[in-house]
């Protein structure tokens, strides 16, 4: 699972959970898979990305040291920074581990790079 996906993922579908974001990451295996660099997409996507959540997630999986705590105003012109963000958002891939709901503590296992977001019947909100 890429950190871009993680940045969009919530556990708010669980009954009683209101925000469910950001999910905490506990990773036991992380890989970096090369993805073509697409600058316009990165810039466009950054308007949707929750930066503190990305920064925290990148640190949780061990790829956070390259990212600033806050995203400055001139990031669009800084290709070195955009490439680092590209790496964090799209190339870092969590293969094994789990996601933890910040409100309920419910764990979602990640295996073979795929998070399991299936709920049991009593967890589904009506």
């Amino acid at each position, binding site marked *: 699972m890429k950190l871009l996906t993680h940045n969009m993922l919530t556990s708010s579908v669980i009954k009683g959970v209101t925000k469910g974001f950001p999910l905490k990451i506990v990773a036991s295996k992380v890989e970096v898979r090369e993805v073509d660099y*697409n600058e316009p997409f990165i810039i466009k*996507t950054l308007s949707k990305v929750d930066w503190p959540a990305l920064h925290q997630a990148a640190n949780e999986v061990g790829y956070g040291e390259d990212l600033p705590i806050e995203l400055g105003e001139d990031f669009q012109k800084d290709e070195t920074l955009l490439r680092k963000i590209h790496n964090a958002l799209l190339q870092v891939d969590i293969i094994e581990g789990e996601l933890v709901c910040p409100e309920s503590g419910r764990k979602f296992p990640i295996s073979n790079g795929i998070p*399991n977001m299936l709920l049991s019947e009593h967890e589904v909100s009506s």
Partner: protein
Amino acid sequence: MSSSGRPEHQAPPEIFYNETEAAKYTSNTHMIDIQQKLSERALELLALPDDVSCYILDIGCGSGLSGDVLTEADHVWVGIDISPSMLAVAREREVEGDLILGDMGDGLPFRPGTFDGVISISALQWLCNADKKCHSPAKRMLKFFRTLYSVMRNGTRAVFQLYPENSAQLELLTQQAMKAGFTGGLVVDFPNSSKAKKIFLCLFCGGSTQALPEGLGTENTATNVRQKHVKGQRKPLKTLRDRVLEKKERWRRRGRETRPDTQYTGRKRRSHHF
């Protein structure tokens, strides 16, 4: 699919799409070809802005065949599917998109305004089934459409190609989608052909009122009829040669062995004088 009856009647999707069934989506070229064409049409109906990479959700992404079409068009995608076997195949194929194991009927687990477009190929009809005792199709549909509406960016579209079992299913799906706030409706390609007919539920999320795209194989037939009436003219009759050439072209498209076209193609045989 037609030879084995409707898969929704056999087992829940996470059981039906087991390893054997999932393997078909990598080995059966006919199936791959159909999935690709449907995905291309769905992408066309999404009417995304030109030359912009978008962030797309693929619902019922399976082994990622539809995702490949999105990747080819330079879009970044996330796929959600309920079948672990299908997702394992997608992973094995090293698809570009990210994959999530989930049930669309539980609601979509994303932040509001995440996606620039949503596609779904041959998956929505599964929502019409109650595979567990606690399942109520109408409730699951509404839950699904409500969360779908929320995860889409305002002014974007969701296009579902589906195989409904009957018109009641289509009606319920459309009704629940409208209840969730969507506008739009059905686009039917080749409505007069039982084989080529394809149904797309095309939903608009907010934004200005948009006209529903036209189905394929409908406008041409309509204009032909109109022209005939207006002008009172008949199309010139096709010659034998034209008809033979057309048939040979059809055969080639289907990959059948066909002799090359020559000056003798479609010509009458001369009677023998000797």
